[in-house]
C-alpha cells in the first residue's frame, strides 16, 4: 500500500494502537506485531512477494548463526557467499534477467550470430533492491565480526521487513536498527509529535511538490520532441524537484512513522540541492545507499588508497553500480557515469571533502560564491537527471539536443503556463522552508522553535496545504520501481 492513500491512513493507526496498547512493555509481542504488520503491508501489493522476503530473511538469519559457529576462514567465506549469491541472485533474476538477455541477443546480432533465450514476463517485487541490501549488510557485518549475530528470529524478521522502510529505504544497517528490536521502546509525546510532523512534511513533499511537478515533467519528457530550449530545461528542473520530493518525502514518512513506534532510522537526505559541489551532493543524497556502497564495495576494493588508477577504477565502479542498482536501462548507467565524471576531479585533487559544514552556517543567506556553487551543482545534477528520467539513450540525447538547439527562450503552445505559476509558488515556498530548516533533521522541524500553539497552528496549515494543493491523481513513489 502507498503511504499517501486511505489504506495506509487506516493501517497506521490500527498498528499504532495495537503496538502501544496491546504490546505495551512486551518487546517480543511488539516485535511479532511488527512482523505481522509488515507482512500485511508488503503483501498488500502481491502476497507472492512475501515468499521472497521470507526466503531472504531465513537465509541470512541462518547464515548469521552459522558464521558465529564457524571458525575456519574458508567456511566463513563460503557462508558469506551463500548469503550474497542468494540475495544478489534474487535481485539479479527479478530485476536484470531480461536486461541481460536482451543485450546478449543484441551483442550476438552485432557479430551476425543468433542468440535466443527468450525474455520472461517477470514482475519486479516492490522493494527488492532495498531489503536484499539490508540483509546483506547484516551478514557482511557478522562476517567481519562487527556485529554479533542474533538468535532471535522474530527480531531479525522484524528488522528485515520493518514496514516503514521496507520498500524504499532508508537501507538500514543492522548495527543501528537491529539492537532497537532488543530494547524496550519508550513512548514520548515529543518524539511522537515530531514523528507526526515529519510524516506530514513527507506527505507535503510527495503529494504537493513531487506530484505537481510530475504533471508537467511527464508532459515535457513524454512529448519532448514538441519542445525546444527553455521548456526542456524546465522539464529537467521539474523532474529534479519531483524525484527529490518523491524520494525524500518517502524517507520522511518512513522515519516519522518509525518514530511513532519508538524507533530511530538513519537520515537519508540532508538537503542535497543546497550542495556546493558534487561530492557534497553525494554526502547528502540517498545517504543510506551511498554509504552502503562506500562501506561494502568501495572500501573493500581499496577505496582511494591504491593510487590514482585504482581510485579512478573504484569510483567508476561505484557510480556505475549505483546507476545500475536503480534499474535495467543503459540510461541509469549513463547517469552513474556522468556523476563519476563530475566526482572524479574533486577526488583526484583532494577537494571532495571541502564542504563538510552546512552552507551559510551562521548566516541567513548564502554569499555570492556559495550561491553560485549551489546553482552550478544543481544545474549539473539536473542535467544528469535527464538520463535518469529518459526511457532510452536515444530519448535522452534527443532531449538534450532539442534543449540546446534553436531558440532557447521561447514559449511552447503545449504548456499550461498559468497552472505552472501555482507550481512555481509551491516550489518557492518549499525551498524557503527547506533552506530555513537546513540544519535540522527535516525542513519543517523549524517549527520546533515556535511556542506550542503556533507550532500546532503551523502543523494545521501544513495539513491544509496538503489538502488544497495535492495533485489530482495519486502517483506511485518513483523509487518503488527500484
Amino acid at each position, binding site marked *: 500500500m502507498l503511504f499517501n492513500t486511505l489504506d495506509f491512513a487506516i493501517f497506521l493507526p490500527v498498528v499504532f494502537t495495537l503496538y502501544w496498547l496491546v504490546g505495551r512493555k512486551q518487546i517480543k509481542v511488539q516485535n511479532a506485531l511488527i512482523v505481522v504488520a509488515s507482512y500485511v503491508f508488503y503483501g498488500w501489493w502481491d502476497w507472492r512477494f512475501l515468499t521472497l522476503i521470507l526466503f531472504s530473511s531465513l537465509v541470512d538469519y541462518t547464515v548469521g548463526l552459522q558464521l558465529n559457529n564457524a571458525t575456519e576462514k574458508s567456511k566463513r567465506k563460503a557462508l558469506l557467499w551463500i548469503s550474497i549469491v542468494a540475495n544478489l541472485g534474487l535481485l539479479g533474476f527479478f530485476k536484470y534477467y531480461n536486461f541481460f538477455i536482451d543485450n546478449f541477443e543484441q551483442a550476438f546480432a552485432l557479430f551476425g550470430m543468433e542468440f535466443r533465450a527468450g525474455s520472461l514476463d517477470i514482475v519486479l517485487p516492490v522493494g527488492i533492491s532495498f531489503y536484499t541490501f539490508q540483509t546483506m549488510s547484516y551478514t557482511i557485518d557478522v562476517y567481519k565480526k562487527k556485529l554479533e549475530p542474533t538468535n532471535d528470529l522474530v527480531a531479525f524478521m522484524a528488522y528485515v521487513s520493518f514496514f516503514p522502510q521496507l520498500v524504499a529505504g532508508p537501507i538500514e544497517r543492522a548495527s543501528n536498527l537491529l539492537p532497537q528490536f532488543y530494547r524496550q521502546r519508550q513512548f514520548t509525546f515529543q518524539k511522537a509529535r515530531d514523528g507526526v510532523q515529519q510524516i506530514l512534511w513527507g506527505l507535503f513533499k510527495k503529494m504537493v511538490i513531487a506530484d505537481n511537478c510530475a504533471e508537467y515533467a511527464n508532459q515535457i519528457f513524454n512529448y519532448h520532441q514538441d519542445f525546444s530550449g527553455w521548456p526542456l530545461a524546465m522539464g529537467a528542473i521539474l523532474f529534479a524537484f519531483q524525484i527529490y520530493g518523491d524520494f525524500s518525502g518517502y524517507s520522511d514518512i518512513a522515519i516519522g512513522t518509525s518514530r511513532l513506534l519508538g524507533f530511530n532510522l538513519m537520515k537519508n537526505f540532508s538537503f542535497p540541492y543546497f550542495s556546493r559541489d558534487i561530492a557534497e551532493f553525494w554526502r547528502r543524497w540517498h545517504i543510506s545507499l551511498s554509504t552502503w556502497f562506500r562501506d561494502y564495495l568501495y572500501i573493500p576494493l581499496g577505496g582511494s588508497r591504491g593510487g590514482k588508477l585504482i581510485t579512478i577504477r573504484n569510483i567508476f565502479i561505484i557510480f556505475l553500480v549505483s546507476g545500475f542498482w536503480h534499474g535495467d536501462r543503459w540510461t541509469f548507467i549513463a547517469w552513474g557515469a556522468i556523476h563519476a565524471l563530475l566526482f572524479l576531479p574533486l577526488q583526484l585533487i583532494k577537494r571532495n571533502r571541502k564542504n563538510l559544514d552546512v552552507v551559510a552556517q551562521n548566516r541567513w543567506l548564502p554569499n555570492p560564491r556559495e550561491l553560485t556553487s549551489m546553482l552550478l551543482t544543481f544545474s549539473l545534477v539536473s542535467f544528469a537527471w535527464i538520463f535518469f528520467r529518459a526511457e532510452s539513450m536515444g530519448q535522452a540525447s534527443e532531449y538534450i539536443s532539442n534543449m540546446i538547439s534553436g531558440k532557447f527562450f521561447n514559449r511552447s503552445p503545449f504548456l499550461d503556463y498559468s497552472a505552472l505559476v501555482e507550481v512555481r509558488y509551491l516550489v518557492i515556498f518549499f525551498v524557503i522552508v527547506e533552506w530555513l530548516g537546513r540544519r535540522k533533521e527535516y525542513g519543517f522541524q523549524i517549527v520546533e522553535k515556535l511556542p506550542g500553539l503556533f507550532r*500546532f497552528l503551523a502543523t494545521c496549515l501544513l495539513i491544509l496545504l496538503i489538502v*488544497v494543493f495535492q495533485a489530482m491523481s495519486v502517483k506511485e513513489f518513483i523509487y518503488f520501481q527500484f
Partner: protein
Amino acid sequence: MVRFLLYISGLLLFLGISSWYLYHLSIPHEAKILKLIPSKQQVINLGTSHGYDFDYRVARLNGRNACIGSNSIYYDLQVFRLYDEIELLNPDALVIIPVSYFTLGVDENRTDWPPHDCFVDFYYSFMPPKYIHNYSWQKDTEVAFYNIKENVKWKLFGTRKRPLHSRQTRAFINRHIRKHGKPRPKGFMAIGEHVAKGHLGGLDSNYVSMNTGYLKTLVSEVLASDRQPILVTTPYHEIYNKHFDGTWVLNKYYAMMNEISEEFNVPYLDYSHDSRFTSDRSLFSDADHLNKEGKRAFNTVFFQDIDEYVKKLSRSERRPEKYLLKK
C-alpha cells in the same frame, strides 16, 4: 499517550472543520438549486447539453433545466428519481426527455475527460450515493477534496470553478493536439464535422440494449408517477446530421424511439431533421446546439406542438409576465 491522542484529535478536528468550511465555500450549482427552488416545477427537462435548447419562459411555465453536458440516460433516470423523491415536481408535471443520437452508445461511467472533469464527478457533488452508478466512497472523498481545492483556488487566485467541459483551457487544447495530431478546427462547418465524427466514433454498440433498458425504465417510472413523459430530439444542423444519416447509430436510434413511443403510448417529437431549423445556420451556436434566436424559434414551435399537454397543467402555477422573453 493521552496528550498525543489529544494532539491527533486536535489535528483531525481542524482538518474536518476546515474541509467542511472550504467545501461549502461554493457548493455545486445543482446542489444549490435543489435547496433553493421555492416551488414545485411544472416541467423539467433532462438530457445532455442538447437539453439547454429548452426555455420555459416562452410558455410562461415554472420549469427546470436539469440537463448536463455529455450526460447518460442512466443519470437522467437518477435525476428524475431524485426530483421525485424530494418532491420538486408537480403531481402532473411534464418530464421532457431529450434523447441525443449518441445516448444509446455511451457508458455512464466513461472517463474520456480527465479525473474530476468527468460528468460523473458532478453527480458525486450533490447526488445521494444510492443514485450513483458504482458508488465508491474513495471517489466521493476525491471529488470532495477536488471541490475544496477548486474553492480555495477561486478564493485565492480568483479563478472560477472550471465549467465541466472547458474547451478553452490550454490543457484541453493540448489534449486535443496530442490525441488528434492537430489543434481543434475552427469555423462552424469544420467544427460541426469534427464534433459529429467525434460523437459517432466514440459510440459502442455494446451499450445499446443497456441504455434502451434505462430509457424504458425512465419512461415507465414517469408514467407510474402520473406525470407525462415527452420524448424529444432537438434540432441539429444538417452538417451534423450528414455524419449520422445511414449509420447503425441512427438506425438503432429511431428503432428504439419508435418502439418506446408505441410501447408506452408517449409522444416522440423529432426536430433533428426539421427543415425549419436544420438548414438555417443563423439559429445554431454550433452544429448541434441552438443559439438564442434558435431557442426562441424552437421553443415557440415546441410548446405549440405540445400544447395539449401544457393545457392540462394547473394554471395557478404558471409564471408571471415578467419572465416572458423580450422581443
